[in-house]
């Protein structure tokens, strides 16, 4: 019985290990960013209360701008490097990549409109945005995103919060 329990644990572990498998090619940095250089994605402040002064640190603004510019360029590996360190430990890049591709990876971001800024702690901010995107059919639409950013070790990182895709990181 004890042995069976041990075996059950083993299998769960192995099946879980198999679940995250992605083709080796998907892990390749070369596949993640083969796009021409483009200018940074425009950041627009939607309300009078929101302007350049809302940023608690220039580093957060830089990280935020960089993250969405990488997203615009399709540089998923670059984006992964800006995710919170704990997330990068818990989630392999291949799974993150699949997640992003399912989250509108084939749309083109035209601009990022900041509409909301909430301080959760001195080290944690939620930033609400509208993303102006164009899908492959050329249709323009808006996507609402609330981004969380966290400071650790003096740097700012993006926080993926999706309990459906990544329940283990919550």
């Amino acid at each position, binding site marked *: 019985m004890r*042995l*069976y329990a*041990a*075996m*059950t*644990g*083993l*299998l769960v*572990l*192995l*099946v*879980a*290990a*198999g*679940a*995250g*498998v992605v083709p080796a090619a998907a892990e390749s940095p070369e596949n993640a960013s083969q796009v021409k250089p483009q200018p940074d994605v425009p950041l627009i402040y939607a309300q009078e209360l929101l302007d350049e002064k809302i940023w608690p640190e220039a580093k957060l603004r830089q990280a935020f701008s960089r993250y969405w510019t990488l997203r615009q360029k399709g540089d998923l590996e670059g984006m992964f490097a800006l995710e*919170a*360190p*704990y*997330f*990068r*430990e*818990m*989630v*392999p890049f291949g799974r993150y990549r699949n997640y992003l591709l399912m989250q509108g990876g084939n749309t083109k971001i035209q601009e990022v409109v900041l509409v909301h800024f909430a301080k*959760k*702690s001195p*080290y*944690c901010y939620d930033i609400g945005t509208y993303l102006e995107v164009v899908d492959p059919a050329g249709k323009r639409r808006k996507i609402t995103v609330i981004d*969380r950013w*966290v*400071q*650790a*070790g003096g740097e700012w*990182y993006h*926080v993926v919060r999706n309990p459906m895709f990544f329940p*283990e*990181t*919550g």
Partner: protein
Amino acid sequence: MSRNFTKVSQAIRQRTICGLFVICAGLAFLAGPGEARGTVVAEGDGFKLTQAEVEEFQRFVERGPFKSSEKEYQRVALQVKLFVLEAKALGLDSDDGMSVASGEEPLPRQIELFNRYAKKLVSDYEVSDLAIESFYRAHPETMTGPLDDALKEEIRNKILRAKAPHLLRETFKRLKEKYHVRVLIPAPEGGVQ
């Protein structure tokens, strides 16, 4: 009388030989699948994995509610084999008096060693302070207390639970290279049997 006895004796001998031939043929027929089970499906430096071992592993697993594909049974049997080799190399088999001097270990023992090695892999993995701090600060709604040693340990364990499957998969990949593993007869693709 004596001539009749000789004839009867010869007839019995012939039937006996015939019977033995049938038995031998039957044994040869039965030996066919057995030989297949003894076929080496994968090998590497210092080990071989046979079809019989894969099937033994499959029977063991299917005692419970789990079933998987032939390909998965072969893959996991190979992983168990490699982890057992590493466990032995690290001396993880020498602390309970159950060490087998030579030959193949019984499957339950192999699984025990597999688990010991897997546990060591995970417990030896260093989670950085940066990862712990970022988790703590990214969850202000639930992480309300100070980041003391107990909470650090709790976060570390949470990260390790998520990390473990990837760590085992990466280690399996590394060990396949280390032991120069060659899969001679890949199991057929397909769903759960």
